[in-house]
């Protein structure tokens, strides 16, 4: 199994457990933005937005860089990939199971229909 740091994953999931921070990620997925831009967009104080971005940065989901007086934020893709990979592995297993379960259920349904029409005669 692929090894990855659980502590990183914890931080990532915690960071993602907030609607504003998910919004910020979505926004940064489209284009990088300054903290001021983000604060305006999410109708929030600069301090509030700095806090959210700080948590995302700690979780490795966002990278920030200060150029002059502006701090620019962009997506930190690697960590997000870890989170996505965890969900993806889980998803793949259950999706495969449920596709098979579908077949079993369809077969039950078919049999029931057959029995039902026999009884009707």
């Amino acid at each position, binding site marked *: *199994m*692929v090894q990855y740091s*659980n502590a990183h*994953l*914890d931080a990532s*999931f*915690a960071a*993602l*457990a907030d*609607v504003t921070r*998910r919004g910020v*990620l*979505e926004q940064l*997925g489209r284009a990088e933005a300054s903290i001021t831009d983000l604060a305006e967009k999410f109708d929030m104080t600069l301090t509030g937005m700095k806090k959210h971005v700080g948590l995302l940065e700690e979780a490795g989901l966002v990278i920030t860089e200060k150029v002059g007086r502006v701090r620019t934020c962009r*997506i930190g*893709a690697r960590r*997000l*990939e870890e*989170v*996505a*990979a*965890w*969900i*993806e*592995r*889980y*998803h*793949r*297993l*259950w*999706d*495969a*199971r*449920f*596709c*098979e*379960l*579908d*077949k*079993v*259920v*369809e077969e*039950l*349904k078919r049999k*029931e229909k057959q029995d039902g029409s026999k009884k009707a005669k």
Partner: protein
Amino acid sequence: MEARKQSEPVMKRTTVQRKSDREVVVTRTFDAPARLVFEAWSRPELFKQWWVPKSMGMTLRSCEMDVRTGGKYRLNFGDGMDFFGRYIEVTPPSRIVWTNEEGGENGSVTTVTFEEKAGQTLLVMSELYPSKEALDAAGTGAADATHETFAQLDELLATLA
């Protein structure tokens, strides 16, 4: 022209959400009444047909299930690999709750509910772990994670929303 009469298509999409640090929830809709989905989940000879899809690369050697409140189950995959536990609550055809005890203290509790609506069944399965570490470490036994692309961001955010 031929008049087309079609029933509503079923959304057969499997969703996975991390509800909290300790809980993951999977949903899926089936185009069948709840009693049939419940039957496929609770009769060992049917359960065996779907629980171990080919992509898992494993073979289920034996499967004992006593799907009643207080009943036990044991799945054996050979090489001493066993999954076992107890059914804490079984309410046909709407709910099954069981423990996963092979992990010892890190064992999880799984709840699956079958909710029927207009002949279709919404299946909701929740796995609750004793700690977030246990959940993060939970192995699915599925294939190794392949390199994920950034395009998954949208999908991920959608499932977490």
